């Protein structure tokens, strides 16, 4: 566990963590068992301290207050024992305190040196004031950022609002001119630049060379002279290494040299340029595949895309770039993502993050790019071609067969989906761009019903469709969510689907027959001027038959186009009458309404030949 996570847990424990930080902590706890163990360990100590303190409050004095806080409401009990021995004590105290200070300082030095090994310390100089650099700090024009000593492997990460960023090694210094221009003074800095409309430029002050990029990842390292005396530690050259994409390097007064990924360029202060080959990151690609196969979980609620990008990048250890060209006038901070993912491959999780943000994903060189379909037509598709999906596909199908009981009354659609999500452990995703506000709320109650069938009903009532893909169930109103497969796989799927349909139809027929039998059972009910929804709910609970109401049965639109409850009330008094007959009596009291047996339930609806009151009154 790194020190940032540790600090976050401490902040939470001390009650100073913000809502966002608490949400970040929850995500980390869910996705990483080691962090959860460390958290529980800290909570254990936290809880024990509280317990001991309250136990000892009345009995003993395990702690005594120092003189400067003696006005605390709890007066230490042994203060009066100290007074008679004060003279002797002062002498001993002085010696003891001296030793304590020495030990304390030594301990602090050890702690500091440990921290240095992890990451160099960094400060940002803004408006003449030197401030510690935190993870949230966004660089502004005019800022200077410096890092202190470190082991060499640690980096201080800084991000711009547009998704670009850089990691500074120890003893490095840069000055921010604007979002696209940096002056580099010394050290080693790794840049990850998202594709921009304008070029990003880094001017290396010591060698007077400028590095120009469109969107890529590269490292600049200022090289120092070794030797002794005055000549030691002078920057005589800079090494530019391109990790992905293409970079243009322009030494002062010279022509631009373009270098590709896997190449380094050494530029001396005299303007001499030497090209060096470095490791071509073939290995890096398979390494990336490995990282993207890692299973992860998270729960983002209205989180800015830049925050999600940072989290995903940290947890997978991959470079994730948000292409600002695909965002139009927006910045990654302006796009919020709400997404809950239960244990899935990082690649799929990234796919869903991008989809929720209205973007697509692709891999270029050694990074995952989130951009638009137009800019990257070879993006990851909704339906994968690979066969490995069958395993998780089976798993989701098995989970969807779970029996479920619920009683949703005017429940917003997204809440019904989050109920399914929590109940099943399957990741449900409501597609990007769906206007949930103008959708019908869901009124549906079922007893011991197959979850897949229940979901089908809910989607049908709200005019949605769903598909199982990329380790999740995608709910959407888009027509093409089931397409996008390659031909062979599609054929195979169709054969499988036909088989499943045949089995399903047989099952449905059997379920419908059972419902028909149940409709012969007698019921006794007595309602006067009762609400329609209430009567059907009572009937469902009494008979055990699932009764599904179409939205138009309980709601109508008023003249202003708002959805309101129907005014009709039900009055019924039957004794030992068959359920079938009872249903007929009730439905006759609601204009245009009829019922039928469908998918193992009684479906109460308005036939298409009649006018739908939800549309009719709107006109």
């Amino acid at each position, binding site marked *: 566990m790194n020190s940032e996570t*540790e*600090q976050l847990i*401490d*902040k*939470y*424990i*001390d*009650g*100073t963590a913000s809502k966002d930080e*608490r*949400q970040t*902590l*929850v995500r980390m*706890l*869910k996705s990483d*068992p080691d962090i*959860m*163990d460390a*958290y*529980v*360990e*800290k*909570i*254990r*100590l*936290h*809880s*024990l*301290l*509280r*317990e*001991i*303190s*309250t136990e*000892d*409050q009345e009995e003993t004095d*395990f*702690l*005594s*207050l*120092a003189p*400067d*806080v003696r006005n*605390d*409401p*709890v007066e230490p009990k042994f203060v009066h024992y100290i007074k008679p021995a004060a003279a002797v004590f002062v002498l001993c105290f002085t010696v003891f305190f001296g030793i*304590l200070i020495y030990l*304390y300082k030594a*301990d602090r030095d050890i*702690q500091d040196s440990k921290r240095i090994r992890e990451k160099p310390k960094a400060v940002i100089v803004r408006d003449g004031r030197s401030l510690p650099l935190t993870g949230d700090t966004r660089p502004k024009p005019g800022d200077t950022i410096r890092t202190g000593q470190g082991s060499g492997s640690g980096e201080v990460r800084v991000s711009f609002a547009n998704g670009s960023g850089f990691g500074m090694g120890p003893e490095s210094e840069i000055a921010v001119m604007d979002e696209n221009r940096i002056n580099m003074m010394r050290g080693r800095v790794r840049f990850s630049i998202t594709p921009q409309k304008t070029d990003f430029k880094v001017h290396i002050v010591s060698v007077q060379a400028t590095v120009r990029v469109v969107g890529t990842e590269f490292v600049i390292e200022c090289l120092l002279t070794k030797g002794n005396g005055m000549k030691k530690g002078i920057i005589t050259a800079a090494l530019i290494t391109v990790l992905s994409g293409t970079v243009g390097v322009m030494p002062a007064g010279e022509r631009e040299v373009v270098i590709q990924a896997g190449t380094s360029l050494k530029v001396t202060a005299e303007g001499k340029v030497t090209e060096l080959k470095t490791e071509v990151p073939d290995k890096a690609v398979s390494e990336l595949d490995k990282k993207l196969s890692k299973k992860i*979980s998270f*729960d983002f*609620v209205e989180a800015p895309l830049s925050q999600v990008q940072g989290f995903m990048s940290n947890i997978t250890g991959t470079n994730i770039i948000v292409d600002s060209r695909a965002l139009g006038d927006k910045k990654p901070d302006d796009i919020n993502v709400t997404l809950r993912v*239960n244990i899935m491959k990082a690649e799929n999780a990234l796919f869903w993050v991008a989809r929720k943000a209205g973007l697509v994903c692709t891999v270029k060189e050694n990074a995952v790019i989130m951009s638009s379909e137009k800019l990257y037509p070879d993006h990851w598709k909704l339906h994968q071609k690979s066969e490995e999906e069958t395993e998780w596909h089976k798993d989701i199908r098995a989970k969807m067969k779970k029996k479920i009981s619920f009683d949703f009354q005017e429940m917003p659609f997204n809440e019904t989906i989050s109920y399914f999500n*929590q109940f099943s*452990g399957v990741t449900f995703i409501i597609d990007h761009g769906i206007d949930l506000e103008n959708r019908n709320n869901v009124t549906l109650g079922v007893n011991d019903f197959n979850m897949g069938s229940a979901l089908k009903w809910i989607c049908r009532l709200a005019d949605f469709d769903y598909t199982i893909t990329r380790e999740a169930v995608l709910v959407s109103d888009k027509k093409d969510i089931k397409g996008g497969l390659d031909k062979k796989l599609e054929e195979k799927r169709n054969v499988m689907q036909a088989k499943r349909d045949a089995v399903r139809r047989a099952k449905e027929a059997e379920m419908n027959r059972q419902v028909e039998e149940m409709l012969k059972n007698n019921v006794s009910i007595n309602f006067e001027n009762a609400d329609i929804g209430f009567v059907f709910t009572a009937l469902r609970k009494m008979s055990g038959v699932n009764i599904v109401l179409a939205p138009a049965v309980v709601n109508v639109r008023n003249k202003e186009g708002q959805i309101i409850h129907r005014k009709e009330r039900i009055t019924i008094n039957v004794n030992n009458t068959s359920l079938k007959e009872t249903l007929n009596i009730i439905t006759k009291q609601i204009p245009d309404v009829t019922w039928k047996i469908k998918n193992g339930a009684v479906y109460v609806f308005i036939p298409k030949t009649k006018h739908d009151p939800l549309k009719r009154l709107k006109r």
Partner: protein
Amino acid sequence: MESKDTFIKLLLKNRSSVFGYILGVTNDFHLAEDLFQEVSITACRKIDSFEQGTNFSAWMREIARLKILEHRRKAAQNGLPVDNELLEKMNSSFLRSESLWEHEKELLRNCLKTLTARAQDMIRMKYEHSMLIKEIARKIGQAEGAVQVALSRARSSLRQCMDRGIEKDTSG
């Protein structure tokens, strides 16, 4: 009567683990104490459904889980935004560290004495008097950040001291 005596014994023995679990989610001593009380009352009522020989604290934590979900909105005010998944994962982690609680309490008592007077004061203000970081900072005239760092260091020293104690006990 016999079952009630057993219950009280078990409750006292497992208090720390269950209380810690609730505190881990609520991060509010008072709310955690209230919830723990509710959990104890429910557990007392349902003691007959507890199977002798099975894990009592896991059983209590299951009751606590349901209570926390019941108080979800209240719990999430200062604590973590809770759901089933988080509670279950936390429960598994508590299960792994269960046997250590009682032993650690004694070690902690000794380790507290090794802290500097200033650190002891801060711990006392934080845990005995439930003071907020900003209240402690005001009281001792230091910046909130400095208090937070000092408290983190104090807890870290205590943890190290306790680990040394455990190591000593197991090797001895």
